[in-house]
């Protein structure tokens, strides 16, 4: 049966599987309920909540897919996530490079300042940030969200990248310098390509963080044209409060990009979280 290889003693794993199935059901049933519910009529949701739809109504899904707002929100979320990630990782890589490979007075103090940022709750800063963005004319501007997200993403990104940059042997750098490489040339042409796994990890973390952000876009964006998916979902729920099946369809379609990304980038996400957690 499912006996392990050498070290697991021969024993019955059925209870383990039962527990795993139970937990799996706890996780999956809400998602399955939503997916099937999207194919039902509202009236059927209350008469037949668990079973398969009696007639598969695709209308809820197709109407969402045909709506401009859904695609616009998808685009806004994607745009903000991509630019945030490029900015966060770019700026953090430069700083991480210096923290890892240059010795200068005040370096440790400066680095500690950044690491302390890990402990600053975002909710604490939101009010002054709102006032500041208004003063800068960045309310309603995606740039306002992007800059703030990048700033709050810096601590973790710098910590992880610095750790990785330090692990690259100094001889490689010496060789590059002897061959006439400038510090930036070394950084750009040698260090960054070598750091691809770490770059991938911090990028995945930045994408997920930006994609799921709610509080910041909530206060920055008032115009519907700027809404990201989380804002759109919240508004959609308010707008179609009684149309549960339609909200479920919207939810399921909004889950797909996140889950798809997760399926592709799972390894980097988990690696980043465990690295980030043990260093935080």
């Amino acid at each position: 049966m499912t006996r392990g290889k050498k070290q697991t003693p021969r024993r019955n794993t059925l209870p383990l599987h039962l527990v795993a199935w139970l937990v799996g059901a706890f996780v999956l049933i809400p998602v399955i309920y939503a997916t099937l519910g999207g194919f039902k009529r509202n009236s059927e949701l209350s008469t037949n909540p668990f079973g398969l739809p009696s007639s598969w109504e695709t209308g809820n899904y197709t109407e969402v897919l045909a709506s401009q707002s859904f695609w616009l929100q998808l685009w806004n979320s994607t745009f903000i996530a991509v630019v945030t990630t490029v900015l966060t990782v770019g700026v953090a890589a430069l700083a991480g490079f210096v923290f890892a490979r240059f010795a200068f007075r005040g370096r440790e103090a400066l680095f500690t300042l950044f690491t302390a940022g890990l402990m600053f709750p975002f909710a604490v800063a939101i009010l002054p940030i709102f006032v500041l963005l208004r003063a800068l004319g960045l309310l309603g501007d995606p740039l306002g969200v992007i800059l703030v997200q990048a700033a709050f993403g810096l601590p973790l990104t710098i910590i992880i990248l610095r750790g990785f940059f330090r692990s690259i042997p100094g001889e490689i750098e010496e060789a590059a310098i002897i061959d006439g490489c400038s510090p930036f040339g070394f950084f750009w042409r040698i260090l960054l390509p070598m750091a691809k796994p770490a770059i991938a990890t911090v990028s995945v973390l930045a994408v997920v963080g930006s994609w799921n952000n709610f509080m910041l876009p909530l206060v920055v964006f008032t115009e519907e044209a700027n809404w990201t998916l989380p804002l759109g979902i919240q508004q959609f729920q308010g707008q179609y409060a009684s149309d549960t099946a339609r909200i479920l369809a919207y939810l399921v379609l909004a889950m797909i990009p996140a889950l798809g990304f997760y399926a592709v980038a799972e390894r980097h996400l988990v690696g980043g979280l465990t690295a980030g957690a043990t260093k935080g």
Partner: protein
Amino acid sequence: MTTLTRGPEAKSLPAPAPASGRRGRALTITLFVLPALVLFLLLVVAPILVAFYASAFRWNGFGGLPTTFIGFDNFTRLFSTEIFRRDLWHLLVLVLLSLCVQLPLSLGIALLLHQRIRGRAVYRLVFFAPYVLSEVITGVLFSLILAPDAGMANQVLALFGADSDWLADPDTVMPSLFLVMTWKYFGFHMMILLAGRQNIPDELVEAAQIDGASGWKTFRYVTLPLLGPTIRISVFLSVIYTIQLFDLVWILTQGGPSHSSETMAVTMFEWGFKRSQVGYASAISVVMFVLSLIFALFYQRFVMRRDLEGATTSIGGRR
């Protein structure tokens, strides 16, 4: 060539490019660190300092800087309100539930998935998936599931002739909120703990088993102490996260019914953005910040300190 300042990893430091020399090196350092520093100081550090500053004023957030200085009045007013005391109580409840229910659950599942059971890669993937879904998706999904009439949860209960108001009843709203938090976050803790477990050499556990230790004793005296550092990180993240809990509560209940699920961040948001009492709301932010900071400092001083002494010594320390 200029001489290098001696640092911890001086040997891995480069000789600077000969042409640019010392000034070029200083320029490189400045140019490379500056973008991060500006962004960080302007949008992370400064706002938090401004929150401290604004908390001493009566201010609606408009018209440049606040002018009506009122000292600690915002704080005395805050501490005297019922709502804020309940925020603190809710924080305590959620922290205790997280530590006593969610964490043991995550630990149990992590240990389970460390076993060589068939399909554990799939289980792992599935259990972690909710963590990737945004708080808004999670919140809206569960607000539909826990809806009073047609919600799925009540239709399940109806099979047993029962029902519950879940989010609509002050008595059940906190457990319901916690249920949703568990759905979303247990996978995250499971993942950290699983990584921690995988760092423990299996030989140690086997040795205990060969010495005749029962499953429970192996867990109690070998696995658990060795997992100590990871568990302490998990606890730390749990508490820090709960102090600033906002998204899920805002979507699920907006703090209701009648403030029975309100958190500090929700109260702050209400006063700051809905009622434009930015000074007062800043005082709430400051309390959140100070709580996080005090907790972090104490925790690192008294709890995580043990991790520096090496995890193995704590085994010997126990009788």
